[in-house]
């Protein structure tokens, strides 16, 4: 698992180095001014088609058929909406949801900069370690993560013991079951969505722009504010968009790590779907959430010019990739490194307690355990269900990654080739699966799949996961396309290269970081999903997260911690092998 280096520098006929403060979308004036040729436009629509078909059939149809229930069975009624308007609880829950999501997004962006900076300015081996640190939390189920966090943060938890031992506090601080608990849990798991695009943006930053600014007398702060920040903003905005949309749909983390004041709307929606069986009301709440999110998304697009940022912010890179300049680190840089390391510790903290916890013998998790045993590991290997579920999870995730990468990449490339007036609308439509509560999609897909026999197969689940995952690839590839210079494409085609050759040798290498980041997100989306699996699989096709959640209303089977421990162990071993191999080669 390593994030590839950006493609090698190549000469660019239209390289206009971005200048501090000047938004860099002036990158490719020659091409931007040209009318889109009809053939190119047709290709664009063709690229959009597969994802559009999937989203229509496996997203719009099932979701709309369920959301319709919000307007009454049969006739048109606004009864449910009236209830939402009349009971103040629902407004306050919506406000809470948006506030928590906004705070999480802010925290993710702020905390991601030091980590991304650290990753961009250290040697390749340390960088590989950092990538693993950023991504490891995902490899464990959300149930394991939250459990580990609670062990760390609870009243008599590790952190409080530490703080009181050092003498910083005399009373236990309430870190969990309140707002801080929710923010910690959500920021932790959503941060990679910002770190990766930000890191890619930093690496794509032309070092000569930094050197030029320094040569003109800019201090480190000025360089950051006027060069680094504007040039990395597209990556940060892409990541922040994903985080915000994602955060709105969260309900497991707030339910377990927050208090009642942090009740989020997806909890209420899931409750109405699953417990109250009041699908009409759940549909009305989802419709309201969808409306509110769309308004915010559009305001965001207007304020930050998402489309502008996505489509033309970068210049074709001509110089060296961003790294430390000869000046070395400034005081601020050193501080950033320290902060980046602290954030890395924050990211890895739950993983560090998972191992010792998995070695405890008591079914009640504690840290440190009262006594040690391999009981849960034995359990994992002795009962075939765990291993089978892991294999199913990997199969479904494999199918999902393949589907999402192909559809998302094609759509992202296609979007740049159609007339600009269509782009905002299509872009908005294509990220909708991120906003709609997953349980709505899950129930809708069950109705869609039941007559076809897809329920209970890994195919049905993989289709559902692809719906969720393709938008990630779409967004990340779209962000990386900004550094692709279309004139290169024209040059290649003009020199007689076929479109396939051009794509293979020029287009794909440029956007590879975006594709890979999207693939990682797609994998994670599938590997961590519980809700779709709950509805679309049975005992033969259940995935690891579904198995982990079984019986969770009553107990937490510590075997899930062992399962997480094993996954982490395998990841770390792979990383070590990778490091050894690269060292030998070097």
């Amino acid at each position, binding site marked *: 698992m390593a994030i590839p280096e950006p493609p090698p520098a190549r000469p660019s006929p239209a390289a206009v180095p971005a200048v501090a403060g000047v938004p860099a979308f002036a990158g490719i004036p020659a091409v931007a001014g040209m009318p889109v040729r009809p053939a190119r436009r047709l290709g664009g629509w063709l690229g959009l088609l597969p994802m559009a078909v999937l989203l229509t059939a496996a997203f719009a149809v099932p979701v709309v058929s369920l959301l319709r229930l919000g307007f009454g069975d049969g006739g048109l009624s606004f009864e449910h909406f009236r209830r939402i308007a009349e009971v103040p609880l629902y407004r306050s829950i919506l406000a809470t949801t948006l506030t928590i999501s906004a705070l999480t997004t802010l925290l993710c962006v702020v905390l991601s900069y030091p980590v991304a900076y650290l990753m961009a300015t250290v040697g390749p081996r340390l960088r590989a370690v950092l990538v693993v640190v950023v991504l490891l939390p995902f490899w464990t189920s959300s149930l394991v993560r939250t459990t580990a966090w609670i062990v760390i943060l609870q009243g008599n938890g590790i952190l409080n013991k530490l703080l009181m031992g050092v003498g910083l506090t005399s009373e236990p601080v309430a870190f969990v079951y309140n707002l801080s608990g929710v923010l910690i849990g959500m920021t932790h798991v959503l941060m990679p969505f910002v770190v990766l695009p930000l890191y890619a943006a930093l690496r794509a930053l032309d070092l000569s722009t930094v050197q030029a600014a320094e040569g003109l007398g800019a201090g480190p702060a000025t360089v950051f504010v006027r060069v680094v920040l504007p040039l990395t903003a597209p990556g940060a905005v892409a990541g922040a968009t994903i985080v915000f949309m994602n955060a709105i749909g969260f309900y497991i983390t707030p339910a377990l790590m927050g208090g*009642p004041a942090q009740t989020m709307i997806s909890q209420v929606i899931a*409750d109405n779907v699953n417990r109250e069986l009041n699908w009409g009301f759940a549909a009305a709440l989802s419709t309201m959430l969808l409306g509110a999110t769309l308004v915010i998304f559009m305001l965001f697009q207007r304020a930050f010019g998402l489309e502008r940022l996505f489509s033309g912010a970068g210049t074709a890179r001509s110089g060296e990739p961003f790294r430390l300049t000869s000046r070395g680190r400034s005081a601020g840089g050193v501080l950033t490194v320290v902060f980046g390391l602290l954030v890395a510790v924050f990211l890895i903290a739950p993983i560090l307690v998972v191992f010792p916890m998995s070695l405890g013998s008591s079914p009640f998790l504690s840290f440190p355990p009262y006594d040690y045993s391999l009981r849960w590991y034995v359990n994992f290997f002795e009962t075939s269900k765990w291993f089978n579920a892991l294999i199913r999870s990997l199969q479904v995730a494999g199918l999902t990654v393949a589907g999402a990468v192909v559809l998302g990449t094609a759509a992202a490339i296609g979007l740049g080739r159609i007339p600009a007036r269509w782009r905002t609308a299509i872009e908005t439509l294509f990220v909708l699966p991120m906003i709609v509560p997953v349980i709505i999609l899950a129930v809708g897909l069950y109705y869609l799949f039941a007559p076809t026999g897809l329920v209970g197969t890994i195919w049905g689940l993989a289709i559902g996961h692809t719906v969720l995952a393709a938008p990630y690839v779409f967004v990340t590839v779209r962000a990386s396309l900004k550094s692709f210079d279309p004139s290169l494409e024209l040059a290649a085609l003009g020199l007689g290269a076929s479109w396939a050759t051009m794509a293979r040798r020029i287009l794909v290498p440029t956007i590879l970081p975006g594709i890979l980041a999207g693939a990682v997100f797609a994998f994670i989306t599938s590997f961590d999903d519980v809700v779709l699996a709950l509805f679309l699989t049975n005992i033969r096709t259940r995935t690891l997260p579904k198995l982990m959640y079984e*019986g969770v209303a009553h107990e937490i089977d510590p075997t899930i911690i062992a399962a997480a421990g094993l996954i982490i162990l395998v990841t770390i071993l792979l990383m070590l092998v990778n490091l050894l191999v690269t060292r030998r080669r070097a």
Partner: protein
Amino acid sequence: MKRRTLLTAAVAAWMLLPAAAASAEEMVFASWGGAYQEAIRKAWLEPFAKASGVKFEEDTGPETAKIKAMVETKSVTWDIVTAGGGGLMRGVAQGLFEPITAEMVNQSDVLDGAKNAYGVPSEIFSTLIGFSTKAFPAGGAQPKTFADFFDVAKFPGKRTLPDKPETVLEAALLADGVPAGDVYKTLSTDAGMKRALDKIAALKPNVAVWWSSGAQPVQALGAGDVVMALGWNGRFQAGMDSNLPIAMSWDQQIPQVGYFMIPKGAPNKAAAVKFLNFILKPEINAELSRHVAYGPATKGAWSHIDAKRAERLPSTAERLKNALFLDIEWWAKNGAKATEAYTAMIKG
């Protein structure tokens, strides 16, 4: 290059491996997995297969929403599903379950509070007070009643309560002196509901955790984050069995019943009916409590349970004297409103 193609093909082939094919002629039992389903398997499913020759298969995750989806799309694959009283009643309201008549299953031995026209009771579990024996050691004053739970002066320290109103509203009124027989009558009035909510609101500053999963109160008690919890006897028992410093009080409790139902359109209804009759046989019915700390919902089963095991179970005749059964019909009617009011109170 060739090797890579081969590898790709192998991976692709592996991805396409079909799941094992289903065998015919069986009964499918769907429940919540984990230790609970394991107990049912050992106590009832395996003996049933041996006695009747009916092969059983298991599935997990019988969410009411999924049952509804199955019934409405006529793709029911489950013959027996399990749920608490709330799930049962909400399913009944939507017509998801087959009625279970006296001709199908003889339920004459079932406790009155547990009888239902659409389900066969599988077990009784209770909501009661669990407390930390570190905070309230044996020998000193220990909390016994719901009044003690709400009395912060007498028993100081943090509490944990469910984040849903079921059992909490009842406990609050009982603590406030409402006789058990009048609790639901009182709750049905606006003033009574307010009385219950006010009682809970007064305790709010001392509530550290509003739990959403049954494992949480035990975790919080064990870690010392709270000194008292309103939770399920089976979970407290599991904590005590793992030597956590926990005890529970049987002086006052709100029992709930778990049910087995047949979804409408179940493919093997006849086998399911056979199974339901099988688990009501007294000696068989008693078996489940061997594996989990849930009590039988029949009278006959008790003659097959020794005193030592009965000590762990909520439904002994003695303990049911201080019990107020959760009224699932009341909750079916008033649940949505009560949940709204409760959520608003704990959030506000």
